């Protein structure tokens, strides 16, 4: 290792089969840096690209970042197909392999406990999206009070009708909002029956590409034998609530990014 190289870490895993393939730079071979029953999946990277200054510059380059993110993810997924993995955050780089061993030594028990929890499980993402126009129409159609108000607004003289229409729009909006909350809670309850652990977090983008707001965003830790049940539950939920414009979108299996411990570094 020359002064110009560092170690890029992809994941922690139980030691075993030597990894094959190349690392995130597309050249250096994947290696295991092992210590006391825990191995770090790593590869050497040039600091010109991955050092503090180089990385900061490269993060400005969308094409570079997308390519490297996909490399990182593909390497972690390959490792996950063989056993439990603790995926590292993107851009975790050590200058010395010895520092990696020190960190593993300091956190061995924590890491082993995580392996035990994560074995045979994967992460799934579930987003709840609502088509607001569809939901509003459903609310107007099905809520008796709103339907009555709508009929009344249609029958009145123009001045009074305008007032009633505004009242109707406000009532429909309030009702639609309450319905979104109720459906999101129903979705949480349905999902919870199939998962070990759930992490709810705010979505990176508040809307889907079609412009529908993301009203529920969760990461789920799911045991292998429950994955089919979860996906079936989601399809059933979507079938039941299609007319209300509420839809769940699942993605996975992912490495368990939301369910890993944080590690102590310094003394």
């Amino acid at each position, binding site marked *: 290792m020359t002064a110009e190289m*560092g170690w890029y870490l992809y*994941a*922690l895993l139980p030691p075993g089969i030597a990894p094959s393939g190349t690392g995130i730079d597309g050249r250096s071979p994947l290696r295991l840096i092992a210590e006391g029953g825990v191995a770090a999946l790593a590869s050497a990277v040039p600091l010109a690209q991955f*050092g*503090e200054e180089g*990385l*900061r510059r490269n*993060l400005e380059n*969308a094409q570079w*970042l*997308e390519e490297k*993110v*996909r490399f*990182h*993810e*593909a390497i972690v*997924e390959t490792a996950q197909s063989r056993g439990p993995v*603790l*995926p*590292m*955050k*993107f*851009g*975790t*780089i*050590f*200058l010395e392999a010895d*520092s990696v061993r020190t*960190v593993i030594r300091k956190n061995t028990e924590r890491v082993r406990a995580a392996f035990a929890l994560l074995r045979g499980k994967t*992460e799934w*993402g579930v987003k709840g999206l609502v088509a607001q126009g569809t939901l509003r129409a459903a609310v107007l159609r099905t809520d008796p009070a709103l339907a009555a108000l709508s009929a009344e607004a249609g029958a009145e003289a123009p001045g009074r009708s305008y007032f009633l229409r505004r009242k109707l729009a406000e009532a429909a909006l309030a009702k639609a909002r309450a319905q979104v909350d109720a459906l999101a809670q129903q979705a949480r309850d349905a999902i919870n029956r199939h998962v070990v652990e759930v992490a709810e977090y705010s*979505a*990176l*983008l508040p809307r889907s*590409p*079609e412009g529908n707001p993301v009203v529920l965003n969760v*990461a789920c830790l799911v045991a292998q034998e429950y994955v089919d049940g979860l*996906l079936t539950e*989601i*399809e059933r939920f*979507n079938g039941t609530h*299609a007319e209300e414009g509420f*839809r*769940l*979108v*699942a*993605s*996975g*299996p*992912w*490495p368990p*990014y*939301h369910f*890993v*411990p*944080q*590690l*102590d*570094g*310094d003394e």
Partner: protein
Amino acid sequence: MCRSLTVMNSRLSGATLEHHVTLLETLDRLLNKGVVVAGDVTLSVADVDLIYVSLRLLITSVETWGRGMGEERP
């Protein structure tokens, strides 16, 4: 990557939406979650706003696909 997506009635084609969702979910996980080692032992990108970086990349991607789908360029 093998992703199972329960996507229906989308204005976007399935493949495009899948690409988008996959990139979105990937960035969300790799750049914002995963094992972090506390302290100064790693080279730090902590002072880089990775959420901002993620958003910019996503917006670039959406624009690129938009053009691919025949939308007008500004």
